[in-house]
């Protein structure tokens, strides 16, 4: 209910939710009583605005004169670009001084007496409520929304189905190549029996030719590696998916330190090949401690023990790191003996 009573000033002590600060008696400021202080404040505000102008001038000077590649040492910040720091500082100060000057002006010189700003009640009058209700009823009646049941139901059905194409279109984010089974794609990599292992040099064009001999990897050694024909595959597929799946690390430890492997004789004289892709959410990991044989994922700290079948010993990963069986070919280069025996990378729906 809204009456004229709402517009009348009320005793704040009796109103619910009144602020105790309203009880504090108003005290005049120094600038209200002392004309000298007021003049001081006036000068203060004016000098802030003046300084702001000076900084704008300095900004222009800095912009014109300072060499863009010059560096300067500033304590705490270190060696920084002279131009960047000068431009940032002068422009920042120019705008800051306008702001502080304005606030200082308002706080010290503009009137600071508490005033009550009166407002009307926010609620509608009963008459307005009635009118709105009548409008709604008339619209319902005239459109026949209640009467034409079939129209109403089909409209609801159409609106409910309308968002489905938006969801369906997400399917195009990943298109399985024709004739391929997505589960198969996730479960296999480019590795196969007899395929040579090459160090990953980071190159994405050309071709890999240089294989790895077992004697190239000392005990404690680590090599990020790929299949030798990966360049051809990525050229044919026009993407890096195969490269991402096939990435492995080779580590060598004293054979007596290997407690277990995922398969009998999958190492070659203490050289073990493991997937480089974390089984948690697929971060590439090569953070290998050669004394503890722990492989640590920097994303979520999943830790795998490469001396013990790549088992998870810490962190959120649910599956051990897949191991690749390796051997050497007749020329003495390291080769894979088959593809991975389990899918690499994070779990997916069909893996359960």
């Amino acid at each position, binding site marked *: 209910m809204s009456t004229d009573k709402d517009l009348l000033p009320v005793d704040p002590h009796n109103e619910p939710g009144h602020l105790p600060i309203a009880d504090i008696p108003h005290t005049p400021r120094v*600038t209200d009583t002392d004309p000298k202080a007021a003049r001081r404040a006036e000068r203060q505000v004016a000098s802030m605005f003046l300084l702001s102008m000076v900084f704008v001038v300095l900004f222009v000077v800095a912009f014109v004169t300072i060499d863009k590649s010059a560096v300067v040492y500033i304590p705490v910040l270190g060696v920084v670009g002279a131009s960047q*720091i000068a431009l*940032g500082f002068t422009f920042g100060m120019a705008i800051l001084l306008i702001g502080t000057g304005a606030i200082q002006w308002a706080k010290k010189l503009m009137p600071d007496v508490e005033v009550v700003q009166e407002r009307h009640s926010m609620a509608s009058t009963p008459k307005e409520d009635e009118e709105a209700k009548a409008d709604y009823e008339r619209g319902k009646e005239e459109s026949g929304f209640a009467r034409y049941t079939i129209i109403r139901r089909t409209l609801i059905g159409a609106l409910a189905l309308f968002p489905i194409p938006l969801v369906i279109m997400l399917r195009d984010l990943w298109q399985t190549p024709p004739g391929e089974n997505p589960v198969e794609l996730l479960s296999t990599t480019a590795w196969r029996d007899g395929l040579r292992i090459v160090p990953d040099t*980071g190159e994405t064009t050309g071709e890999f030719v240089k294989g*790895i001999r077992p004697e190239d*990897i*000392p005990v404690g050694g680590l090599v990020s590696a790929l299949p030798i024909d990966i360049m051809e595959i990525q050229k044919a597929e026009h993407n890096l998916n195969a490269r991402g799946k096939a990435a492995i690390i080779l580590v060598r430890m004293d054979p007596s330190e290997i407690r277990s492997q995922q398969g009998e004789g999958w190492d070659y004289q203490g050289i073990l090949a493991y997937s480089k892709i974390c089984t948690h959410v697929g971060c590439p990991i*090569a953070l290998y401690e050669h*004394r503890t044989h722990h492989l640590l994922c920097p994303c979520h700290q999943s830790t795998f023990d490469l001396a013990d079948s790549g088992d998870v010993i810490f962190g959120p990963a649910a599956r051990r790191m897949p191991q690749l069986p390796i051997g050497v070919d007749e020329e003495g280069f390291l080769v894979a003996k088959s593809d991975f025996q389990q899918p690499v990378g994070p779990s997916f729906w069909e893996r359960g």
Partner: protein
Amino acid sequence: MTVKFLAARRRNPAVAIALLLLALVVVGGAYSLASNAQPAVAAMGSQTQVEEGKKLYLEGCSSCHGLNAQGTKYGPTLIGVGAASVHFQVGTGRMPLAAPGAQAVAKPPAYNEDEVAKMAAYVATLAPGPAIPSAEQVDYADADVAKGGVLFRINCAQCHQAAGQGGALTQGKYAPSLMNATPTEIYEAMLTGPQNMPVFSDETLPVEEKKAIIAYVNELQQAPSPGGLSLGRLGPVVEGLFLWTAVFAALIAAAVWIGIKAR
């Protein structure tokens, strides 16, 4: 008397084992002398240097690494670690350890260059191992910095962080920052795998690629921070933390100042 003593015990089963051990030591010793006397001398210089190095070793290192560098439960064997390991570990002050712990921390070296060279010469005579890289091997002047960046991100960044700032490992260990590492130290670390760092041999990571990595680390060391306050170049997490603490505190302070009634 002695003959009689020996004759009486020559059928003792321990004799066979003792003889076998003796033969092994003689053959092994002769082999190792023959195989590495030459590189050790060529790389490290004179016999006196080796002898002085051995003296320093016995005083400073043998309590943990053993009188014959065979290793004890307090420290690993140094046979075969090579001069490069000694130069890196002692030259950066990591060895001798201040105290046993998760991490061998770099500190002001306890030995001068000359003494380090002597100890390196001694350890190099124990068995063949990586030598201290030559000036030519670490000369990165013509190296490809961009390729070094790619190789760094494949091989180094997972522990030392993409900008070489270092990072945490497991159970209190950490990969140190590379901001003060010299080209020789970087090369030696890749070659010898100090502490828990794996070895990146010259066969799988050739000298040219090592040079490129050194050039990239040098680039990181030299790179200025144009905006200042790089916050360890640790990326958005640290920047976010800075924003939510320091910058928000400043904004709140400004808001409080605006709200305070003037006197």
